[in-house]
């Protein structure tokens, strides 16, 4: 897999690979925010408002993180604020993003080497 980078501008780091729980490569979810908002009118019709921007949102699932990898991601979360994101699996485009979600968990199943492993879901929202 090509590198995926995230971090404050000028301090981007390569993220650990996104893997499923079985440590196989996993896909990242990308979705666009709804371009419209809507309201139901008194007669049952719908009125729509087309928004100016449709920011992207990325869901990165790390199913199998070592403690060091987990610490890197945790540090990014703590840093917070505006960051830059690049997924070279998709394109070389840099996006201005912010971490909008962070759900870490420790994997209870003990690995053969006895070291702790973690999983985490990180969601990114595009700043437009």
């Amino acid at each position, binding site marked *: 897999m090509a590198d995926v980078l995230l971090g404050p501008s000028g301090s981007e780091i390569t993220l650990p690979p996104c893997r499923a729980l079985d440590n196989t490569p996993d896909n990242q979810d990308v979705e666009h925010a709804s371009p419209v908002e809507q309201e*139901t*009118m008194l007669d049952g019709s719908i009125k729509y*408002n087309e928004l100016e921007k449709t920011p992207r949102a990325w869901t990165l699932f790390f199913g199998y993180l070592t403690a060091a990898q987990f610490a890197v991601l945790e540090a990014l979360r703590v840093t917070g604020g505006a960051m830059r994101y690049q997924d070279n699996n998709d394109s070389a485009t840099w996006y201005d993003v912010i971490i909008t979600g962070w759900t870490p968990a420790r994997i209870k199943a003990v690995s053969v080497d006895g070291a702790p492993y973690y999983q985490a879901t990180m969601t990114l929202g595009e700043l*437009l």
Partner: protein
Amino acid sequence: MQAISPVIASAFLAKAQKCRHKLEIYDGTNWIDLSTIGSPAKNYIKSISCTPGGAGPTPEVVAGSWSAEIWNPDGIFHPLHPTSEYSTLFRIGRQIRISIGGIYNGTAYYWQRLIGYMNEPVFSQGSNTVSLSGDDYAKRLEDFALDWPDNYWGEVATFDSISSSGVSGSELYVEGDALDTLAETNDPGDWTGALDVISAADSGGGSTYVNRYVRQLPGAADYAHESHVADVVVGEQYFISFKSKPVQGSEWKLRVYQTIGGTLTLIQTFYLDGDAFWSTHSARITALKTGALEMRVEQTDGATDDELRLDQMSIKSYSAQWNVYQLPDECNGPFYVTLGQFAQVGNSEIFTPTVGTTYNISVRYKRMSGSGDAWLGVYQNVSSILTLLAKIPLTSTSWTTLVGSFETESANAIQLRLVSEDGEEDDETRFASISIKAQGSSTELYAEADAMDLVSEANNVTNWTVLSGCTFESEADTSGGDSYVAVFKRTGSYSEQVTQGSRDSNGSWKGWLYDDTTKLFKFDKDRYVENGTGNLNIYYYTAAAPEDMVARILWKAGYYSSEAAALAAMDYTATGVTIDRPRFEDGTSGLEAIRLICERVNYRFWFGYDGMPHFVPAPAVKTTPDFSFTAYGDLSTHDYQQDLDQIANSISIEGDEQEPFAGTDDQRGTKLYGVAADQASIDEYLEHSESISNVLFQDQASIVAMCSTLLAERKDTKWYTMLSSPFNPVPLEIGDTVEWTIPVGGTYYTLRGVIQGLNLENANLTCTVEVTSAVITEGNALLDGDIHYDTEAAVPTAGAMIVGDGDPDVELAAAAEGETALLDGSEHTDTEAAAPAVGGLIMAAAAEGEPVKWRKLSPGDEGQVLKMVSGLPTWSTPASGGSGDMTKAVYDTDGDGVVDAAELAADSARLGGNLPAAFAAAGHSHDNLPTADEKAALAGTSGTPSSTNKYVTNDDARMTNARAPSAHHASHEAGGSDEISIINSLLNLAKNGRMPSWVWWRTTTPNYDGMTCDYAFSASTHSVDADGAWNLGRTAASAGANARILNGGGAYSCNPLSRKPVFMSKVRTYTDIADLRLYVGLSGGLSSNSDTPPSQFVGFRYSPVVGGNWYWVTNDGTTEHEGDTGVAVAVSTVYDLCVDVADGATIKFYINGTLVATRTADLPASSTDLGWIDILYTTAAAYKYLYFGRVYIEQAT
């Protein structure tokens, strides 16, 4: 509503919108739009909300407010951001403006909705957002307070106060006892009561005996009463004076009464507390009835043996000087009155003099601070009136000893007063000593051994009593020559307020009176006023219109630079109302003041979306709505409700005080008041009261009218609705009229109302509307007998009615074979003979496809007809000839069955259809007839044409055009109507005795005409070209060398300014004008190669080191002046330089005929001899050139 063009109203109701909004913040220089910041631009606005101000349902000012959530993920708005240019953008007080709009036809349109200020920004670190909020321009009004003197409208009149000293009459005190000043006896008089009243020998009061009032029991109030101390007449004034000494105890009082209706009625109270010294009291009273005057000595609370002594009681009639002060015509009554107050300290026991003796008094003092008038007064009671014997002004700011003298008028004790007539708090004067001696005597009479005693200095100020507004204390200070000084210091400022009809602490009326008819102001008779200078300030009202009051408040609050500017900027409707006494309570906020103004005239005030202040009547529903929500589906919510608070069926208004008090006994305390109620409404809804208190209601008529207006507005219940229209940026405002449609019980209603509140969440519009009308929506009868409500705004025409389509759809049944579909959904068998009923109209043939619809024809198809044929009816254009105006109404107007034209043709009485009268002669013309003008010309110009007055023909030999011209030379002379310039100049010279002289270059040497010329060149060349004849003069190639022409013989003695010379020189620059210096003009000597001209000079200078332009220069031998003419010096360019002193005093500098400067100062003396000069210097070791053309000078002979 704001103008929306080119966007149309229906665009806001379209189901698909692209709403946009802006929040701009003013950083002091630019408006920063948070929706487009950075590059590439980002929109940092997360959400925005605003509630604009507007014309609300009541005079309460509806102020706008706003809030917004701002994204701040990169922290650029945070005040601690180290590099962001926006780190100071969010802070309290920033100006903001909000605009909401959308994209229509590909273009973004915005409508500003609010302009105002930012309140406290709140940065939320966790959510990376900033919460902003604030108000519209009304915020400043809310914060602004109308403090004195801005809280009233008027002017101030300043007067010198006039003493109200009166004249006392004979003694009226009737008791021949110890209080008597006339016939002292050892008798306490007729005093009765719980206090023991004893006559006792005590000369301290000034007589042999005094009255002692001794308390017998401790505790509550005890008194001694005398029921007849004098006979008085109702309404008359009296002067009461006596001496008292509180020997023991406190809270002693002497009250003066009269018994009225069996009840003691208080007239005056004397408070007798203080140190155990004798002191004098006096007051002026007015009798309440004719009869006995009574007195009571009273101690509120005390102990056994508490004692008060009284002596020298005197009651005399008194006629005060009731001085009046004339206020101007525009005065509508005093608002605030201040009277200069003396600060004074007195000593009533200096010494007892001998009548008729002259005494000297010296005082050593020093003014420490303060510039107001201060003086030492010597007083004595003369016939019970405190009389000023001598007044010694105290002005020195260094230790000074002043000596004055006075002569006594009675044997009463001499009293002193130190007076600060005007000044401010802490003004201070120090006294080292006061000495009083009889003239010719060395005996010191000043009796006090205190800080001011020359004899026995001590650290106290014995027997001095503070009378008003000061402190008087002893202080160690040797600067005055003794160990101690007495420090006299003001404790308050100069002026005190005098209020209308006010009582003083003794219960006397001490206010003022005003007569609005005569505009005369006066103090109450009981108020004793001293003479003063500029110490009476009467702030009086002048009338103002409510709109002017609003404008002034806006000015004072800082919105505009002046009241006029505020009025010009304001959208207002003139009220036609005048407020006679415009005022507000001190400290009233600007917002509250404007609310009161609005309440007075039932107006509305608000700041518009653009900040413009509006002051207009309450909005009314309009005949054409500002905006229509045409369909039920244009709204997302619709509430319908009543408001209990809206009902007011009992209105009361309390206005200003009635007319100013007519006298001291006029204490009505009543205000203008009006009430109106509607019993029917009370019966229906119970009573709901509305009470208004507003001093701007200043006449009964306005109160009655406003009660009636408000009652009519509010006695009946009203309906209100809350409308929501999402994604709708239509720029509606409070006060606008809107219309909308709702279905109720299967019937559609069109409602109309006035917006009373409005809120915008992003572009989601919510407004509260007062419903003013609700009518059933006009419907259209359908062929099936039903009603179809057309919810569109336009009224449909018959041809536009849709059958088989529309909303809701009319479903048509599918016809079976051999049957016809009917509009009621049934089917009609073609063989059926019966005529179909309503709703059974056949609109489609069986098995023939689409149903036939009534429809409105498309443009261009107008005039088509529905043609019934064997198959389906079809729309077709009628055949030609089948249309037009061939109607009976046109061609057979009398309806007799015969076409009108044919009827005329058949009439035998007519020829060609016309009656004979149609051929009557109507006059005619002939080609050869002279015109009227030609005939008029034959009348000639002189006399009547005849054999002796013939016309002249061309062959007449006398018809020649030769004529001797009349003399007219004067018209060509100077100043003539047809002045010829050359002749003029020549004649003018001759006429004025002026002599012209020329020098010009015809060959390599100059030619002279009337004068000689000297010249000096290192080389020269003669030439003639299109510009004229020239001699190209050259300097030597050494710095400071020159080339020149000048007066013959080098004389500078030809052209003093007194001879009014006019000097002109024509030169042409060379191709090189660097490193040179050129003077042209009239000079007292040969110039040097410097930028300082010769000692006497008027002319031009060009020096590139000073500037690239010609400079005018003058030098009178002492002072050199120069100035930039603004005319640039260019290479190879001809310049006509002229110095014109034609009037002998004014130097006019011309370049190429254009006046470039005028000088009248720092010129050479008129008699100083000057000569003309053109001189070129080289400032480098190089040749420099100048084309010398010609020189002209003229001057008086």
